[in-house]
């Protein structure tokens, strides 16, 4: 572009013009960054927030059958952004003794389907892709990349409390979401 095409009047000499362009660039960039970075952060940062569930009461340990999986539902007050309400979750519990048990997340480690216990073959079977697991959660067959996920729990005065957590599916490592 030659000078004649540049829409500047005679009162703005070229060096001044250069300065104005530079100054406008710096000022606009500063305004854009000071406001733009926080605004983008406001959209991005909360997506990395981890929701922390409390240890929720599931029920008495005593009546549970020994070494035989049972499905139990439990409720707790959860906060989803600005909405607080009771949510219900389900877990598989295998009791070893009155002080020791395993709590499995009901979500298949392959692609997140809900599996079931088949007492006739004594296996956990996922209906989606036929992944099969033992009573201890080990993979017998199928595409599941890792054993069933266990959940943190504690027993206080004979009552089981479980902390609901979710994990990434489809990978060999157990990583919390």
């Amino acid at each position, binding site marked *: 572009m030659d000078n004649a095409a540049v829409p500047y*009047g005679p009162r703005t000499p070229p*060096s001044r013009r250069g300065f104005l362009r530079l100054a*406008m660039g*710096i000022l606009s960039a500063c*305004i854009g960054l*000071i406001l733009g970075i926080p605004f983008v952060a406001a959209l991005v940062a909360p997506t990395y927030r981890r929701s922390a569930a409390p240890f929720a009461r599931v029920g008495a340990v005593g009546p549970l059958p020994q070494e035989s999986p049972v499905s139990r539902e439990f409720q707790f007050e959860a906060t989803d952004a600005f909405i607080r309400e009771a949510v219900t979750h389900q877990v598989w519990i295998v009791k070893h003794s009155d002080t020791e048990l395993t709590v499995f997340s009901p979500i298949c480690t392959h692609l997140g389907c809900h599996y079931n216990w088949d007492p006739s073959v004594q296996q956990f079977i996922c209906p989606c892709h036929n992944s099969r697991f033992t009573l201890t959660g080990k993979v017998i067959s199928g595409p599941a990349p890792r054993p069933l996920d266990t959940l943190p729990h504690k027993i206080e005065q004979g009552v089981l409390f479980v902390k609901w957590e979710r994990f990434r599916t489809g990978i060999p490592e157990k990583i919390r979401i």
Partner: protein
Amino acid sequence: MWTGVKTWIEARLPLGAIIRWVLEEDIPGGARFAYVFGSASLLMFLLLAVTGVLQLFYYVPTTDHAYDSLMYLRLQVPFGWLLHGMHYWSAQAFLVLVGLHLARVFIWGAYKNPRQMTWLVGVALLVLVAAMSFTGPLLAWDQLGYWSAEVGTSIAGTVPWIGAFLQRFFRGGETMGQETMSRFFVFHVALLPALLLAGILLHLIAFRQAGSVGPWNPLRREGMGKFWPDQVYRDILVSSFIVVVLVGLCVFPRAPITGVADPVGLAITPKPVWNFLFLYQALKVFKGPWETAGTVGLPIVLILILLLLPLYDRNARVNPRKRPIAMIGGLLLVLGVVTLTILGYYANPSAYGAKATADPDVNAPAASAPRDPPPRPAGDANRAAAPADNAAANKAAAGRALFRSQHCDACHKIDGQGGAVGPDLSNEADAGRSAAWLAAQIRDAKTHNPQSIMPAYTALSPEQVTELTDYLLTLRSEATKPAAQEPPSGQREPAREAARLIGDWREGRTLLAAYCSSCHGPEGTDKIPNPGSERGAVPALNPIAANLRDRDPAVFAARIDRFIQDGSVPSGPHPALRMPAYGNKKSLTQPQIAAVEAYILRLNGVDRAQILHPGMAPPQFFLLTVIAFAVVWVVVLILSHASKRTSASTRK
């Protein structure tokens, strides 16, 4: 490569020509800082559009979640405080800058031939901006927005013939509610912004068509300056100052927190937002049949005065010194608006409200705001008749008559009727006070609380005092179970709605003075004697018991919430005073309890509206902003000097 792309696009869409048409503008007499207000207003529009859209990522326009979603954004989303704060303060600044822009154009005579269309579109934009500032606050569903919309839609209701329709249309029904919010939401985020954007484009096109007016002094009009880059540089420089000021406003005064909308807004004074205060104040001049002239006539006249200005002021002179009538007229208008705004700000609305209620025919907006309390199941007569004993009923009836004749209701409310100076007595029977305690209170309130402002009724006969106490001890707002079966100390769980609402501590202060101070002292500091209780005194709220206090505002609020909701009976053989269950008995609404909690937290040094996830601490962010812009300004200043020196040397 880039040139190729440019040529390809240019051949199909002449972007270069459009940009040149927008930017290539001769300014007679050169660029000046006086011309920045238009661009600054445009910057505000852009900031409002960006922050508005970003807020929509978190906001939901429903009456049950709008306030929570906004508070989530403001307190829990990183930089949400900045996002909302910039929207709030840009909106305020927008009004100021648009006003300055209008004044500048008026003084420079830039509305005269051939610039009439620019002016007309500009006035239309002003009305749109006013409409935006009216519809915006309601979306927060807080007290401020709720009550200003309530007053505003009531004003629409006074329009002759079509008023009732207009009010219904804007409210989406007879009363304020979800439909009102949906309507205001669509207006605020879709219709009005679209119109505003279209208007701004027309305004700019009309402005480019007629060109800049330049200074009135012919000597200073010599030579042509350029819009690009000379004026744009000044616009951006000023914009950077405005941004720093806005960030400072977000950090230090913060946007107000007025608590969730409460249709039982007894502690709230319905007042419009500041930019409508002049209209609100002007309405007080118009009474009775003239009210419509104020509510409808005045705004229309004001708009017409502005709109038609280029049509009735056709004098071609632009020098303000040669337009004394226009200048004096404009000055009077500004002075009038400023005076009315200041008067409106300091106006004593309770006096106005009282006057308006005295005359039921006057449907003044402040009075028509639903100050009528919700209906209670049991009427005054029914509850007094409830005790089977006829003699007691007669005595109570006499007490009720005394309550009226002694004007106790000037300060005390029973079933929603009466003043708010003293405590609400609707639940006095359940407050746990003995007849002797009440008698002493009537005889001389200072025996219980030395700071009480209740007059000593020494002229009443002992029989009259008994009648009054008998009456007071029949007051029970609903068929509630006997207080003795209340849980010992508010241990019901979980905490109720109020515990998660962010209340306004200022409203809480008013409520605490009205409801709590007779037992807890005016600032919650006193330990009023409570004979028959284990402690022997009412626990102080300030400082509150250490096992209730918590640095986490949500935890702290949840702990005290149970006491306010369920009440509490102090341990001890026969405690004279018991904490009433304000929530269960509905003598306070959940938003009101939230306000009281916010104030109690504040008395104990905890901010209920504390920003939990700021992203960066607001004061630090302000410091960073100031430093960043200071560096940029210094660099620009140095470059400016250098470039001036080189241009001077090349000219030589």
